[in-house]
């Protein structure tokens, strides 16, 4: 690097960052980062839409480095890059949309714990290098290889704080149930990533309920909103119950599946409530993949149109709170799969 060039300013001036300084990817640092994977450095992962630059093991490692990852995080970044290119996830659509959803990464399995991914107190906020930098690496890949840059190809109205990073693991230590990946049929020792295109979380604080029925009514209410696409299209959602809320259910004998089923039943609004504002359109209601009669005011419109679209996890620290992340309208289905360590 030329002495007259400030390396931090260099990357910011070229729009090669998310607005924060990046770690300068020198050849020496890149070589060290690449020791974090056994994969061939030239292996092609795929084109990142809409820019369609080809992600390879090597340039994914460059972005992991720029984001501040330790080399041990590289397998997770590679796994997530591969996973998010599945057709059903529709990264292409999200890169251009006016909405602001971001790919939330839920990383399960022993490797997540080994590298220090955090699922407890403050897990969706600052302070945890693995969470902060793995998610940031994915964002840098979406911007630098995919050109998902606001005003260039991204028409997002606001963006979202979660577009800087959106990565966590579950709080399996304090949670009462099997992990999300185990609920999908993976083995406890499998290293699995689940990704869902969702908004930043909104909270359901409830320090009053002491039994599941009342508790889940409040959480289900947080899952509905006139302006949420979940009410007007088939749309994914992540509900992250704090261990305290999950414990209330588990102590009453409710399994993860019981809570999941009950939330799918409870969350929703009647046509009468929906049609007064927000995104309600009769045509949209008729286009839903479930039977909804838009002319029947008493017809119940469930938030979750297909139970597979609700990812229920346990995360966060102790306290009476559940985080609810609403989804996108444009047709993105959550994806999950094992990654190579």
């Amino acid at each position, binding site marked *: 690097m030329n002495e007259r060039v400030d390396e931090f300013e260099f990357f910011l001036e070229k729009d090669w960052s998310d607005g924060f300084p990046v770690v300068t990817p020198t050849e020496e640092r890149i070589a060290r980062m690449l020791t974090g994977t056994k994969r061939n450095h030239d292996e092609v992962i795929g084109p990142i839409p*809409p820019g369609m630059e080809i992600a390879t093991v090597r340039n994914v490692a460059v972005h992991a480095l720029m984001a501040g990852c330790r080399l041990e995080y590289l397998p997770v970044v590679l796994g997530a890059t591969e996973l998010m290119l599945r057709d059903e996830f*529709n990264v292409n659509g999200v890169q*251009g949309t*006016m909405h602001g959803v971001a790919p939330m990464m839920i990383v399960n399995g022993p490797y997540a714990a080994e590298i220090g991914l955090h699922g407890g107190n403050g897990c969706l906020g600052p302070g945890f290098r693995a969470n902060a930098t793995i998610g940031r690496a994915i964002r840098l890949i979406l911007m630098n290889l995919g*050109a998902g840059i606001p005003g*260039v*190809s991204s028409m997002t109205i606001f963006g979202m704080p979660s577009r800087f990073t959106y990565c966590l693991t579950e709080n399996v230590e304090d949670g009462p149930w099997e992990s999300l990946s185990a609920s999908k049929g993976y083995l406890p020792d499998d290293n699995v990533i689940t990704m869902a295109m969702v908004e930043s979380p909104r909270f359901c604080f409830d320090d009053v309920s002491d039994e599941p029925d009342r508790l889940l009514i409040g959480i289900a209410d947080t899952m509905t909103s006139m302006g949420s696409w979940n009410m007007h299209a088939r749309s994914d959602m992540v509900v992250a119950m704090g261990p305290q809320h999950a414990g209330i259910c588990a102590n009453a004998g409710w399994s993860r599946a019981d809570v999941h089923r009950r939330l799918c039943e409870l969350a929703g609004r009647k046509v009468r409530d929906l049609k007064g504002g927000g995104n309600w359109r009769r045509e949209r209601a008729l286009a839903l993949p479930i039977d909804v009669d838009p002319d029947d005011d008493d017809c119940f419109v469930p938030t979750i149109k297909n139970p597979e679209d609700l990812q229920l996890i346990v995360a966060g620290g102790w306290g009476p709170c559940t985080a609810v992340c609403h989804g996108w309208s444009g047709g993105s289905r959550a994806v999950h799969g094992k990654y190579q360590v």
Partner: protein
Amino acid sequence: MCSVHDTVEFEKRGIPSTTIITEAFKKAADFQFRGKGMQGHPYVQLPHPVSNLQPGEIRELTLRFVDEVATHLKG
């Protein structure tokens, strides 16, 4: 911008196709056509927004632009 992607895929298969966007998506459409190797491919640009129009207004908009759509499809 799935519509640009679909147009490109149809055109690659020799099936004439066009993209209909609202003007708010112009930059994204231009970028995507360029990125997918079809810079300058014609598309139809509607005023923004359209999602709040009533059925009669949609019909009127359709009639205003249908000839342009047909022209693009004829190549």
